[in-house]
């Protein structure tokens, strides 16, 4: 098999759209290497997701138009991807989003190609053609730097939402359409339902976004609810608010309540007692609003607004 000087990225689809992790990967790969970036897209005849992908400026998109591959199982997709490599050559790297699908197809392909794969990377860089992959292990307590010196493609899955996606406005992406790819269909797997997940219950412990109200924010409940609706967040409270009729114990964050780990936590009128902050250490980004410039919560926050929660909520609801 011939080697080609390209980095490949697999375009992952959720239902009826491209997963934004794909765009993030395009931007990242372009920023760390001069090697041309090729996106591999499997879609039905009727779709044209290449137009969306193009906006992020990959050098090339290989579009396989095949209705049967559109919602195919892991085995069929891995077979199609290895078919593409047979056809076009072996790229320097082949990167997937570390989603359920990416983490299932990539190792299957790895075993076909007998190369290395690093899972769930948090960072990527190049030393010449060597892809340096940083991955967490032991539940993110240890970081490992992993390389695949002697095999190609160097494969990795990358955790979504670590990198930023940036659109570019030059229209130089080359689109190659493939209509005659051979791949093996897996006849043993029959996907009988394939739908968007039903909205899950509001559950603080698993929520991705939380708006938390404290004693200083309780009068702004309506504005807070509006914000929560806008950004699809769950509402949590400090303990004193659980005495109010509007809230119950299950909404309490903290040591004697829930431990939360959202991507985004917005605290409104929360002072930042140890019992509260014990429950928020694993939040990714914390924004806090407080009228007291010296409120302890500010020491535990990434972004702080010193002012009233009412003013802040009204302004934020307007811009979002």
């Amino acid at each position, binding site marked *: 098999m011939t080697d080609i000087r390209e980095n490949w990225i697999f375009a992952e689809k*959720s*239902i009826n759209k491209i*997963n934004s992790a794909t765009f993030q990967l395009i931007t990242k790969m372009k920023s760390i290497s001069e090697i041309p970036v090729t996106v591999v897209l499997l879609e039905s005849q009727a779709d044209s997701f290449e137009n969306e992908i193009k906006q992020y400026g990959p050098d090339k998109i290989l579009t396989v138009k095949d209705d049967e591959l559109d919602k195919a*199982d*892991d*085995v069929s997709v891995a077979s199609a991807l290895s078919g593409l490599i047979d056809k076009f050559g072996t790229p320097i790297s082949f990167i997937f989003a570390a989603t*359920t699908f990416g*983490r*299932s197809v990539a*190792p*299957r392909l*790895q*075993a*076909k190609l007998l*190369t*290395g*794969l*690093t*899972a769930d990377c948090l960072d990527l860089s190049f030393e010449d053609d060597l892809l340096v992959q940083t*991955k*967490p*292990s*032991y*539940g*993110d*307590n*240890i*970081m490992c*730097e*992993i*390389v*695949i010196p002697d*095999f190609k493609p160097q494969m990795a899955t990358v955790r979504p939402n670590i990198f*930023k996606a940036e659109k570019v406005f030059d229209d130089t992406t080359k689109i190659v359409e493939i209509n005659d790819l051979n791949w093996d269909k897996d006849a*043993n*797997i*029959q*996907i*009988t*339902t*394939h739908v*968007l*997940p*039903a909205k899950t219950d509001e559950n603080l412990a698993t929520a991705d*976004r939380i708006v938390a109200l404290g004693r200083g924010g309780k009068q702004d409940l309506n504005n807070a609810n509006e914000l929560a609706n806008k*950004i699809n967040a769950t509402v949590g409270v400090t303990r004193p608010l659980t005495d109010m009729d509007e809230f119950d114990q299950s909404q309490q964050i903290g040591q004697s309540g829930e431990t939360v780990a959202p*991507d*985004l936590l917005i605290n409104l009128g929360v002072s930042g007692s140890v019992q509260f902050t014990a429950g928020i250490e694993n939040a990714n980004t914390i924004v806090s609003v407080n009228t007291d410039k010296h409120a302890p919560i500010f*020491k*535990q*926050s*990434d*972004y*702080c*607004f*010193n002012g009233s929660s009412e*003013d*802040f909520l009204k*302004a934020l609801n307007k*811009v979002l």
Partner: protein
Amino acid sequence: MKIVVGLKQVPETTNVKINEKTKNIDRRGVSGVINKYDRNALQTALDIRDVVGGTVIAMSMGPNDFAVSLQEALSLGADEAVLLSDRAFGGADTLATGYVLAEAIKKIGGVDLVIMGQQSVDADTGQMGPIVAEMLGISQVTYADEIQPKSDNELRIKRYDDNIEQEIIAKTPLMLTTTGNAGKPEYVNVVEIKNSFEKPLTTWTSKDMPVDSNRLGQSGSPTVVRRIMSPEPKERAGKMLSTDATKAAEELAGILHEENLLAEED
């Protein structure tokens, strides 16, 4: 059904640190346990066996002390256990580990179903299931949340993931990997432990399987761990936004967009 369950012994806590002197992972005082997702895999296998009949074989590749975890699997109800242990297997990455597991499953022969945990909690890769499935040339369903036997050679499987919910009907031979929702792992019964020693636990080395020595251990591993590090401790920047509410809201909205912190519109 003949079912093989892959089990990995992992440290009882993932709260480990790097030893400043040796630059290695400090495992002082940390003993081993069965990887938690593998408990779901084992329970799923036992539940299926109890409905359709058959045998459950627990299998692990690793040093001799992994035998304790296999014995534990026998105490939990597995019928047989196989330990794959050989100096030549040491230092294997996922590809080289998968190769040995696949060869051992071939040696057992006639296996209908292989079940593994969705990932191990130490290496956190989740690659073993798909790799072994590919090497065996069988179908796969990963991250399975609910599994029910439909007939002697068919399973009905549900997976719910952040993006897509699926129901799948899968025919054997098949590889399944299980999430923490699959099966309800039970506790080892205090009295059953001793009875488990009446069940067979065999050890196979590289000589017991027709393996290519170039594909074993470190030499069969394409990945190289160059360095291990402690993660940067998370310091909260405490950046003050503008004191003007409108300006602050605009600043924050920009940051939230840039950092992908807002929900994607569905």
